[in-house]
């Protein structure tokens, strides 16, 4: 099964790029894991609040939705590396590696165009909401400190741009790594596009 491990089989000291990649993976993984467990905790607090304290957490639903949005876009790059994106490789899977690489290079153009489109218009969209704050966080903050936190909802909407940028970086990096591997005569670590969940 595939792992988001760096693909070049480097001997000797770890190249700085690989170290950077590992650090990035570790950061995203910790954020995603924490966010997932936070979702479970908030939802359970919600159920408990209703049955034990007879009240409901009015901020829970909103906060959970925002956490889920961030989990989605933050994980896009790692999901790409793990082959979680379903694709049809029945027609291309049997072709020679050089041909496969060529096709993937051509396909990267429309993919990057789409990600640029969504990412840049996502940024424009997010920046329009600088004046609108997140009610759920304001509510919690007011209870804790007496005043609203004033975090604009831009910080939720910007996740689209972050996600597109990460995914674009992974698409390009994956292609470059595979090209290097191919030139060095190594078998391309081609991830079959079937979901490879180790679940």
């Amino acid at each position, binding site marked *: 099964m595939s792992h988001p491990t760096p693909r070049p089989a480097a001997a000797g000291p770890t190249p700085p790029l690989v170290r950077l990649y590992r650090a990035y993976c570790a950061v995203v993984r910790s954020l995603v894991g924490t966010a997932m467990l936070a979702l*479970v905790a908030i939802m359970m607090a919600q*159920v408990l609040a209703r049955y034990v304290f007879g009240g409901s957490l009015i901020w829970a639903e909103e906060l959970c939705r925002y956490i889920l949005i961030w989990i989605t876009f933050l994980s896009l790059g790692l999901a790409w590396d793990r082959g979680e994106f379903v694709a049809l490789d029945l027609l291309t899977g049997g072709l020679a590696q050089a041909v496969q690489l060529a096709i993937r290079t051509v396909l990267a153009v429309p993919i990057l165009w789409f990600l640029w489109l969504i990412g840049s218009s996502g940024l424009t969209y997010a920046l329009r909401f600088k004046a609108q704050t997140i009610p759920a966080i304001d509510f919690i903050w007011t209870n804790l400190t007496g005043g609203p936190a004033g975090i604009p909802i831009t910080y939720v909407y910007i996740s689209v741009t972050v996600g597109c940028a990460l995914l674009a970086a992974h698409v390009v990096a994956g292609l470059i790594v595979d090209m290097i591997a191919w030139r060095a005569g190594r078998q391309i670590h081609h991830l079959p*596009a079937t979901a490879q969940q180790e679940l």
Partner: protein
Amino acid sequence: MTAFFGIFALLLASGTPIALALGIGGAAYLWMSGNWMLALALPQRMMAGIDQFVLLTIPLFILAGALMNVGGLTDRIVVFARAMVGHRQGGMSSVTVLSSGFFAGISGSATAEASALGSILIPTMRRQGIPPAYAAALVGVSSIMGPIIPPSLTMIVYGVLSGASIGQLFIAGVVPGILLAAGLLIYASWRARRDGFPVTERMGWADRRRATLRTLPALILPLIILVGIKGGIFTTTEAAAVAVVYAIIVGFLYRDLTPGKVWEAAIATGIASAAILFITAVANIVAFVFTLEQVPTMVAGGIASITENPWLILLMLNVLLLVLGMFLEPISILILTMPVLLALRQLIGMDPVQFGTMVVLNVVIGMATPPVGILLFIVSGTSQQPVTAVIREALPLIGIALAVLMLIALIPQLTLLLPTLFPS
């Protein structure tokens, strides 16, 4: 519109992931049709597609299933199924079908089911002399019970999009799930007798009792979910969180789970859910483009103009969904076709719950049909068998699933009896 389908088909055939092929096709269409100023609305459409509270059930139910899996419940389900039917005619192949049925009660996703059960059952069947391609096909097609027997991610998405009650859909899936299991069991034992597959050793009563006790938590979970939702104790979304906590408690009670395993499962689940939710987000772009072009009205009108016979409409609808299912995965199909589906449902006057169960079963069967049958690809990978060999073995099994689809389309009682017995 032809341009959209042309671009989409070309991208798909050349190996572009479905999510991106959908997005590129939709955006390109917007550009060509002179609606480019609407491109700024696309991120907002994507956001709207996933900014829904009930979609939290997707990562949560996946996490619950993953925790039960790493907590060793998958192995115990297999042992339990072996204790029940391993010594009978079908041997390990019957065990496979039964295990899938039980696993479906802790998992709402067919892909998770195919990968979890495939890694255990395909090697076991192979050791017993069962042809690996057949073993793989059996696991792959049996996995469609995952989204039919509650909980079900596909039903949740259907409920979100159509407004049908998710609780009612869940309970309506029980009988079709049992029918699927029964049909596959009959085929498995017939096949075992024909080809002389061995049976496993009969287990003693002490072992059977032990197997039952150790599997009980997995068997109870669907009941907790159904009773909790139907009884109004918690919402569907909360039910998913309860399932996670239940899985954690059970895992620690049985000493199979460690904090490290929980942490790893949480990360893996977050990443797997991201891919699903991204497709949901992007499919929303295409749905937006379709609506601009009034495609749903045209398709529904087109079908209605061919015939007014509800049975024929039903048949065309199911064929349409099966064809889409060959190229797309369930969630994008539901998002793209929902307006058409709702219009046609009104036209033929079918109950929303029966209609929903039928549509969900139909699109899920698409996961096991070539060329984009993700379940077949997963089991082909696990079994190291060429996907064409797996497809050949899968065909009769898919036929059984289609027969069940036909039954629930024609006989309302199969889906509606339980929901009427237990109204919300």
